[in-house]
Structures are given as structure tokens and as C-alpha cells.
């Protein structure tokens, strides 16, 4: 089994690329792979607790908590990007990590595959 690192940049909750990234991570973990998931820019919105499910609207929080519980999935938000948007440590959901971009860089170096989803 391998390790996949996914980096998402500037993708707000509700964006198609963020949905894709989480569903891909879920599929990879189900197949026994490890996944590191990095959020930069507006993607750090995913690292804000208290998100609610609405009909026909993207809701990724539950899936992410289930993925974290597997032990094969790490999700990390860019600390500076989050702080710049007013998301502080106490706003972070359980199991989410906040780090500098060095974390993402280190993850890509020992990953078997990297998918970097760029922003605008």
C-alpha cells in the first residue's frame, strides 16, 4: 500500500475540486492507502468546526471525521492561511492539524504519489 499526498489550494467549501479531493482521499483510504491532506488558502475553511449539513449542499465534515478515525488519514491546514481568515486554534475540529507549509513539503517528499490541486 502506498501514500498519497493531496494539496488543495484556494478551494472554498462547496467547490468542486475540494469535493473531488476529499472523495479521492476516501477512496484511497478504503483501498488501504495512507493519505495526507493539506489545505492552503481558502481551502482552510474546511478546518473550521461547526459546519452544518444542508440538503443538496456539500458537507465534508462527517466524511473527514470518519477518515481521521481510520488512523490512515492526516488532515492539516496552513496555520497562517487560517489565522489570516480569522480561524484560530480553538476553531479547529478535533483531529485536524495546523502547521506551516513545511509539513506539506515534507509530506510530498515521502509520498508515493502527489496530487497538487492549484488555486486561482
Amino acid at each position, binding site marked *: 500500500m502506498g501514500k498519497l499526498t493531496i494539496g488543495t489550494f484556494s478551494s472554498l467549501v462547496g467547490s*468542486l475540486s475540494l469535493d473531488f479531493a476529499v*472523495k*479521492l482521499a476516501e*477512496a*484511497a483510504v478504503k*483501498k488501504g492507502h495512507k493519505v495526507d491532506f493539506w489545505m492552503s488558502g481558502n481551502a482552510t475553511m474546511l478546518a473550521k468546526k461547526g459546519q452544518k449539513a444542508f440538503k443538496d449542499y456539500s458537507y465534508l465534515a462527517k466524511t473527514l471525521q470518519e477518515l481521521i478515525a481510520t488512523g490512515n488519514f492526516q488532515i492539516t491546514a496552513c496555520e497562517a492561511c487560517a489565522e489570516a481568515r480569522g480561524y484560530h486554534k480553538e476553531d479547529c475540529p478535533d483531529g485536524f492539524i495546523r502547521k506551516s507549509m513545511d509539513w506539506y513539503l515534507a509530506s510530498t517528499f515521502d509520498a508515493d*504519489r502527489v*496530487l*497538487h*490541486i492549484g488555486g486561482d
Partner: protein
Amino acid sequence: MSDYRCGMDMIDRLSAESLGIIFVGNGVYHAATKEGGKASSLLDKKANFYALTEDFETRGITAGNLDSRVKAVNYGDVVDIIFNDYEKVIWI
């Protein structure tokens, strides 16, 4: 490939021994849309083509509408393609 109107120039510049293109999001229109009766020129590239079933079905496209050069895949298949068939992955 996640877009229909943009990204073609980048694919034109790609050079690989083995190239696979996975259509996701609005990129799935490459797999089924015919403009002026012509399929997407992207499908003329020397590559293996895949389209994410969830994304084309969301847009009202069925597997029967796909160009014969395109294979329908699910998320699990995409994981296998990424790990087993190609060394590098880029998002366009």
C-alpha cells in the same frame, strides 16, 4: 482534467512515454460533447482516457454518451490508475 474551456494548451505541452487523462468535474464534457459535430480535439491525443462516472452522470451524461475512446471509472478506479499506471499526477 477538470475544465472544458481551459487547460488544452498545457496538455499540448505535455510530453510523456505514457499519458493518461482523467476527466473530472466540467472536464467530463470532453468525453461526450460534440461541437459542430466534432468530438473534443483532446481525444486525438495519444493517451488513455477516463471519465469519472459520478461527475458525468451529475451532468446528465450517461456512459452510453461517452466517446468510444473514453472509459468510465469510479473513485476507486482513479486511485488504482494513480498508483498503478502513472508515476506522476497533475491537476489541470
